[in-house]
C-alpha cells in the first residue's frame, strides 16, 4: 500500500461520503468465530465525534466518486468539477483492518458513486465485504450501500456478508425526485429494498428450522431523506417515513438537513443555513413514533402540517390535547406516562418501578430527573400542590419558554447577533 496515494484517496473519498448520516453500528449479532478479528454483538460504539458533533463509528467512505448520474443535490454528480479517485478493493480492506485493530472504528460503511452500471458497482462493493469476511476472518460491522437498480442475485450475496444494507430515497416525494434527479426513478430505489426485505423474512423463518442458516443482513436495512432541498413539508416527510417503516420493515430512517453544495437554482444557495433545528424536530417525531407509542397522524396531519420549532413535538401535541391532562403519575398506565411532556422513557421506567413502593411526590420526581419545567403543567402526584389555574395552551407555552433556554432560542439569538 503506497502511503501517499492512499492518503490522497482517503481524503477525497471520505469527504464525499460524509453527507450520509447513518453511523449506526448496533443491532447485529455477529460473534467472533475461530479467534478471528472483531465482534459485532451488542450495542454500537461511537469511537469519536467530529467537530460538528456527529458520531464516528464506522470508516465511512466511497469506493469511488466517479459517477454517471447527475443528481442536483449530490456532491459527486457528474457535472461537478471536483477531484475524482477510486480505491482498489485491497486498499479498503487494509484500511478497515488496520483502523479496526487500533480500536478506531466498529467497521466499514462502504458506498459508491455509480460507474459503468449499477451491477458493476454493486459487484465491487460485495467483493470488499466478501474479502473481509472470508480472507481476513473479520467479524466487525459492515454496512453496504444497495446500489439502485442492482440485480437480485447481487443483493442476495451482499446480505450474506453485510450486517446492514441501505438505499437512500434522498427526496421525500416522487415529484421532487423527478425535478432534482431526472436520471433516477423511485422504482430503482425500491427494487433492492424489496429484495432485501424478502430475504430477511426468509432468513428469519428458515432459521427457526435450521439453526445454522447463514446470516442475512442481521442489522436490517435503513434509508435516508434530505430535508429542505425540495420544498416538502414535515407532514409529507413523516408520511413518507412512516410508509417506509411499515412497508419495508426498515430499522431506521435518517433525516439529513441539506448542506448547500451547489449553485443550481433548483436548490437552496451556498451559504444558506443547514436546517438543523428542523432536522432535530423530525428525529424527535421519529422517536415518538417508534418508542413512545404515538401514531404519526397524532403529531402531523392535514390540519398540522408543520412541526413547531420552538417547542418539541410532544409538548406541541400535549398543548393541542389538554383534555388528556393532568395525568396522575401514581396511577397512569405506561402509555399515558410516556405522553407527559418532559418525561423520557427512562424516567417512565423509573416511575413505574418506584411507585410500587410508595406514592411519589414532587421531591421524588425531581430526584429521578424528570424535566419538571415542562411536566408540572400536565401531571399530578402525591402532593396538594399542583397547577390549579385553568391555563390556556398559549399561556402554558409562554410560561415554559420563559423558564427555559430552548435550543431554538439559542440558535435564533446566534443568528441575530450576526446582524447585531
Amino acid at each position: 500500500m503506497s502511503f501517499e496515494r492512499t492518503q490522497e484517496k482517503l481524503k477525497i473519498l471520505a469527504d464525499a461520503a460524509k453527507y450520509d448520516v447513518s453511523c449506526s453500528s448496533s443491532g447485529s449479532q455477529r460473534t467472533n468465530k475461530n479467534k478471528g478479528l472483531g465482534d459485532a454483538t451488542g450495542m454500537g460504539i461511537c469511537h469519536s465525534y467530529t467537530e460538528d458533533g456527529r458520531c464516528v463509528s464506522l470508516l465511512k467512505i466511497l469506493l469511488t466518486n466517479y459517477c454517471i448520474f447527475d443528481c442536483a443535490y449530490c456532491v459527486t454528480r457528474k457535472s461537478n468539477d471536483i477531484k475524482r479517485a477510486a480505491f482498489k478493493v485491497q486498499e479498503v480492506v487494509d484500511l478497515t483492518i488496520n483502523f479496526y485493530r487500533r480500536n478506531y472504528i466498529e467497521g466499514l460503511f462502504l458506498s459508491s458513486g455509480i460507474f459503468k452500471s449499477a451491477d458493476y458497482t454493486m459487484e465491487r462493493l460485495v467483493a470488499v465485504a466478501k474479502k473481509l469476511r472470508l480472507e481476513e476472518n473479520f467479524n466487525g460491522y459492515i454496512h453496504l450501500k444497495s446500489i439502485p437498480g442492482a440485480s437480485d442475485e447481487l443483493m442476495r450475496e451482499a446480505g450474506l456478508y453485510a450486517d446492514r444494507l441501505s438505499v437512500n430515497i434522498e427526496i421525500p416525494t416522487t415529484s421532487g425526485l423527478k425535478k432534482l434527479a431526472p436520471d433516477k426513478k423511485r422504482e430503482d430505489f425500491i427494487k433492492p429494498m424489496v429484495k432485501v426485505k424478502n430475504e430477511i423474512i426468509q432468513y428469519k423463518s428458515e432459521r427457526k428450522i435450521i439453526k445454522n442458516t447463514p446470516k442475512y443482513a442481521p442489522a436490517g436495512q435503513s434509508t435516508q431523506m434530505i430535508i429542505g432541498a425540495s420544498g416538502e413539508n414535515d407532514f409529507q416527510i413523516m408520511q413518507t417515513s412512516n410508509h417506509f417503516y411499515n412497508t419495508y420493515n426498515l430499522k431506521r430512517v435518517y433525516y439529513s438537513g441539506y448542506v448547500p453544495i451547489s449553485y443550481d437554482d433548483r436548490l437552496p444557495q451556498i451559504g444558506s443555513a443547514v436546517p438543523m433545528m428542523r432536522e432535530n424536530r423530525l428525529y424527535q417525531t421519529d422517536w415518538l413514533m417508534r418508542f413512545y407509542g404515538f401514531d404519526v397522524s397524532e403529531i402531523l396531519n392535514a390540519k398540522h402540517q408543520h412541526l413547531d420549532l420552538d417547542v418539541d413535538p410532544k409538548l406541541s401535541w400535549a398543548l393541542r390535547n389538554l383534555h388528556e391532562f393532568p395525568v396522575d403519575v401514581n396511577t397512569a398506565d405506561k402509555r399515558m406516562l410516556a405522553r407527559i411532556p418532559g418525561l423520557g422513557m427512562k424516567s417512565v421506567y423509573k416511575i413505574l418501578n418506584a411507585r410500587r413502593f410508595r406514592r411519589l411526590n414532587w421531591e421524588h420526581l425531581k430526584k429521578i430527573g424528570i424535566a419538571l419545567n415542562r411536566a408540572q403543567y400536565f401531571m399530578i402526584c402525591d402532593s396538594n400542590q399542583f397547577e390549579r389555574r385553568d391555563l390556556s395552551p398559549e399561556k402554558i407555552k409562554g410560561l415554559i419558554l420563559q423558564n427555559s433556554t430552548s435550543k431554538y432560542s439559542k440558535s435564533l439569538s446566534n443568528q441575530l447577533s450576526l446582524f447585531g
Partner: protein
Amino acid sequence: MHNRNLIYDGTFDGFLSTVFYVFEQQIDAVTIQSESDVQHGLFSENETIITDEKKANRVWKGLKNKVSKFGHYQLYYAFLSEQAGVENLLLDFIKYVFSTDLKVDKDFSHPSVLKIAQIAKMVGREKHRMEAFVRFRLTKDVIYFASIEPDFNVLPLISKHFKRRYADQKWLIYDIKRQYGLFYDLQKVDIIAMEFPSNFDFTKTNVDYFDQQEFEFQKLWQDYFKSTNIESRKNMKLHIRHVPKRYWKYLSEKQPY
C-alpha cells in the same frame, strides 16, 4: 455510643468481608474506609478487617437472591467508582435490601437506591467510553498498546469486551492513574504491573518503541477524522459534550498532526 471505623484493604472482597462483619456484630454506627484513604475520627476506634473470600462470597450470594441481576451488578459498578463514602452508601443499600422481603433494588424513591443507580450509571458510562476511546498503538514487539486514565476503576469491566473483540492480536491496556494493566497474550487476559522508562511519555508515539507503520496509520486516521467533518454544521459544544477534553490527550485523532 462510639462510631466504629472499619478499615478494609480496598478490594471488593475486602469490602464484602466488612459488610459480613457489620451484620455479624450487629453494628449500628459504623464508617467503612479503604486503608488507602483512612481518616482518623477523634472519638472513633479503628478496626482493621481481614479479607475473607468465603465470607465475601456468602454476602455476594446472599445479595444475589435478594436483588435482580441489574441490582446485583449495580453494586459492583458503584463500588468501582472509588468515590469517597461510596462504601457507606453501599452498606445502607445492602441493609435496606436485607430488611425486607421485597426486591427493592428498583425502588428509585429510596435515597440510597437512587444514588447507587446514579453512580453505577456514571461508571457504566465511563466503561462504555473506554471501550470507545482506547486507542491501540502497535509497538515494535507487535503488541497493541493503549494507555488510559479513566475517572473510575473500569479496567475489570472492559476486559471481556476487548478479549472477545481482539482475539487474534496481543494487546495491553494500561491504567496510568492506578498503575496496572490488562495484557492479552492470545490465550488469556492477565492483570499486570509494569515499569516504564523514566522519560516515557504516554501521550507521544516514540520511534524507539513503536512500529514504523504506526505513524502512517495515525496520519490516515487523523486525515479521515478531518475529512469526515462537515464544516457548515460545526458545533463544538456538542463535540466537547461527547468527547470531554480530559480524554483528548490519549486520542490519536486529537494529537498534533
